[in-house]
């Protein structure tokens, strides 16, 4: 297979697959109609009616978009960013102190094994039912994969690199920035990527308990009204959000890792 | 089909193309039973491609391969191969014994006891007696390559293909392994086709050296190696005939521009 055909396929194939999936769903739900599984077109209509039926000045976004989707996105991103930030900083601190590993690691392993839903009551007590609670809840979920991956990445910097830096008497802050950080970045990004998936799962959860708006809240509203197209619409929307978030992160990852790979080559 | 001068393996007009790039441009060779033949050529000369076609891993674009006078289409059952990268060709989840036994698993005609005996015997002939329960990653590089050789031996092939098998070990280990393969060849009746980029190694080990050109690869020269049968790492290499052969082969490899 020659390379031009290869590259065309690589770009076209995902789109073909997507079209195929939608097409199969449409076909099956049209031929075997079910109340529980509306056709793709009905789901599309529901999404359009809910969120994209607004005036042209607002890019056709409806009021509901601004009152439901935007808050969800805001919580998602701020929660993810907060969890990522804390996770990376703490991860560096713990990772750079190999002596504390034996004491701290088991506690961390325990804390991250607590399933997020069971700490909802705790967070409701501590932080109320507003946005802070949700953002902190999301941040907590994101914290663990980022923290543990950062620790792993920082601890596993190749010793030859560290030794080289020491032999050339490179100062500690420079060592951290130019040796430890680049070496740990792949693992950190892996943690951040898992964090995206966790953030979305947890965000939806948080909006299904004690929430007055958001995509999760809309899901519950749809459930109360038995409105399946609406519910599936929210699910599709979440899938799109997740896909875009992932793609964005992947794009950043490629850029950053390429830059650091080049900078590593100059050391 | 007896007669030691009847070709065991014959290759006629073998060609191979990757896309529009012709890697092998018509190779003819024949091996008789019990020969030790070295193939040497510049890098990129399609040596590995040639071995892959012979071992059945790759279907050549054109040309024929004959074993015992019969055309071969798929993986010939009398051929065993030793790869250069032992750490990737041995299976790390299996013990040494399991690795050596691997080719024998498929051979239904062997009993369990017979297989165990072959494994033990092969390991002994490569100097690894007693390592059955170890894992490959517990052994040094040289020892791992011995396991790979033992694995091929256990198969009792009539042709042993070796693809630059000693290129990934250090010089001293290489000498040990070269002498090992000579010993093994003396004690086990088989033909060895040994691919290498090391001219000295090709002359030291073989009775015949096939010199390949750069791609599109052809056999440029078929040189007999009239050195005494018993080889010694220092005595043999000090012989004037050795230097002459080395010079002749090097001239063909380095002098060629196409």
């Amino acid at each position, binding site marked *: 297979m020659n390379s031009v055909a290869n590259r065309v396929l690589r770009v076209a194939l995902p789109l073909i697959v997507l079209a195929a999936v939608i097409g199969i769903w449409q076909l099956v739900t049209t031929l075997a109609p079910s109340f*529980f599984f509306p056709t793709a077109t009905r789901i599309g209509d529901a999404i359009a009616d809910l969120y994209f039926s607004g005036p042209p000045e607002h890019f056709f976004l409806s009021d509901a978009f601004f009152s439901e989707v935007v808050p969800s996105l805001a919580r998602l991103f701020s929660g993810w960013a907060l969890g990522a930030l804390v996770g990376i900083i703490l991860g560096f601190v713990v990772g750079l102190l190999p002596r504390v590993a034996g004491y701290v690691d088991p506690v961390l*392993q325990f804390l991250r094994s607590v399933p997020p839903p069971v700490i*909802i*009551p705790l967070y409701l*007590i501590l932080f109320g039912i507003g946005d802070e609670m949700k953002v902190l809840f999301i941040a907590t979920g994101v914290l663990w994969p980022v923290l543990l991956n950062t620790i792993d990445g920082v601890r596993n910097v190749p010793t030859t690199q560290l030794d080289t830096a020491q032999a050339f008497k490179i100062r500690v802050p420079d060592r951290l920035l130019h040796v430890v950080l680049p070496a740990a970045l792949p693992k950190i990004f892996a943690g951040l990527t898992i964090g995206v998936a966790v953030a979305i799962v947890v965000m939806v959860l948080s909006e299904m308990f004690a929430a007055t708006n958001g995509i999760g809240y809309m899901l519950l509203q749809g459930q109360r009204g038995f409105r399946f197209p609406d519910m599936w619409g929210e699910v599709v929307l979440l899938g799109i959000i997740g896909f875009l978030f*992932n793609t964005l992160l992947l794009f950043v990852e490629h850029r950053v890792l390429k830059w650091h790979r080049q900078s590593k080559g100059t050391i | 089909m007896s007669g030691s001068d009847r070709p065991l393996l014959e290759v006629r007009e073998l060609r191979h193309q990757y896309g529009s790039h012709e890697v092998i441009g018509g190779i003819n060779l024949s091996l008789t039973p019990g020969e030790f033949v070295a193939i040497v050529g510049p890098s990129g000369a399609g040596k590995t491609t040639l071995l892959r076609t012979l071992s059945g891993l790759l279907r050549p674009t054109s040309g024929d391969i004959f074993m015992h006078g019969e055309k071969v289409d798929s*993986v010939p059952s009398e051929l065993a191969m030793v790869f250069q990268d032992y750490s990737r060709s041995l299976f790390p989840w299996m013990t040494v014994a399991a690795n050596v036994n691997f080719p024998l*698993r498929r051979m239904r005609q062997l009993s369990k006891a017979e297989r165990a005996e072959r494994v033990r015997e092969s390991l002994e002939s490569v100097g690894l007696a007693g390592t059955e329960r170890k894992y490959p990653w517990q052994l040094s590089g040289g020892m791992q390559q011995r396991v790979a050789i033992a694995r091929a031996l256990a198969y009792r092939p009539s042709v042993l293909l070796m693809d630059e098998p000693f290129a990934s070990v250090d010089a001293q280990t290489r000498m040990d392994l070269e002498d090992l393969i000579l010993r093994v060849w003396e004690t086990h009746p088989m033909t060895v086709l040994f691919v290498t980029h090391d001219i000295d190694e090709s002359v030291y080990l073989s009775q015949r050296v096939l010199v390949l050109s750069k791609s599109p690869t052809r056999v440029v020269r078929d040189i007999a190696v009239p050195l005494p049968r018993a080889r010694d790492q220092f005595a043999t290499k000090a012989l004037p005939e050795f230097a002459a052969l080395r010079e002749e082969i090097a001239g063909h490899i380095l002098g060629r521009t196409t």
Partner: protein
Amino acid sequence: MSSIASSRPPRRFVERTAGVRRALLGFVGAIVLAEVAIRFFDLGGGYLPPITEVLLRAATLIFDPVFLVDVGATLLAALIGLVIGCLIAIPLGTLFGSSSLAFTASRALVEFLRPIPSTALIPIVILILGQQIEMKVALVAFATTWPLLYNTIYGVHDVDPVAKDSARAFGYGRFGVLAFVVLPSAAPFIFTGLRFAVSIALIVTISAEMLAASQHGIGRFILLANSAGIGYTTVFAAATVAGLLGWLINWALERTQKRAFKWTAEAIGSGR
């Protein structure tokens, strides 16, 4: 020059328990910190019970038959769903990872469907399947399929071609190569996917129990204890036990992985 790794001599008792001792110290330290924060710095504004009380309650919960029934219900649903997820994902993943066209196509499929959070499906599945174990199993099966599928596809796809060639050169056909080379080689990565799937299974099961009016389950227990207003000690104790359970499962899986696949770490260590 030859280096045969010798079997380790048995370590002294003090050395072997050093890890456990440090872990205990770490926990004690964390508990003391939390206790001080709650009792003296009023963390939680008076609503948060002291850690020591929570731990005592957790200890009694572990022997409480009502709670144990709930734990069993959650584990059962998670396990059945996980098994179904494995039965779907591993064969499919092996198939997709084996052909390069199927690989590219399935990657696209997984990248689009994977981001869908399984928690979002809870309301839908509750309406379709009810509030009991069938609903939980279906959700867990869906949720666990994705990480297992992803890891199986990549694990199978990334098997070393030299390893496959070695088997083929000795006359093994497609099925032989699959059974004796591809699957053992991919197994560690598939197992990693399994570990991730286990934690997802628990999250999804407990979330579903909390959102539905399930008859049994840890989620139900916590929900009831929360709304009963009997003090948050029991709620947090249950949460602690759930965490301990998750931790135990994680630890067991990690040990199994290290033992069954010790060749991966060693192979990397020997400079592969």
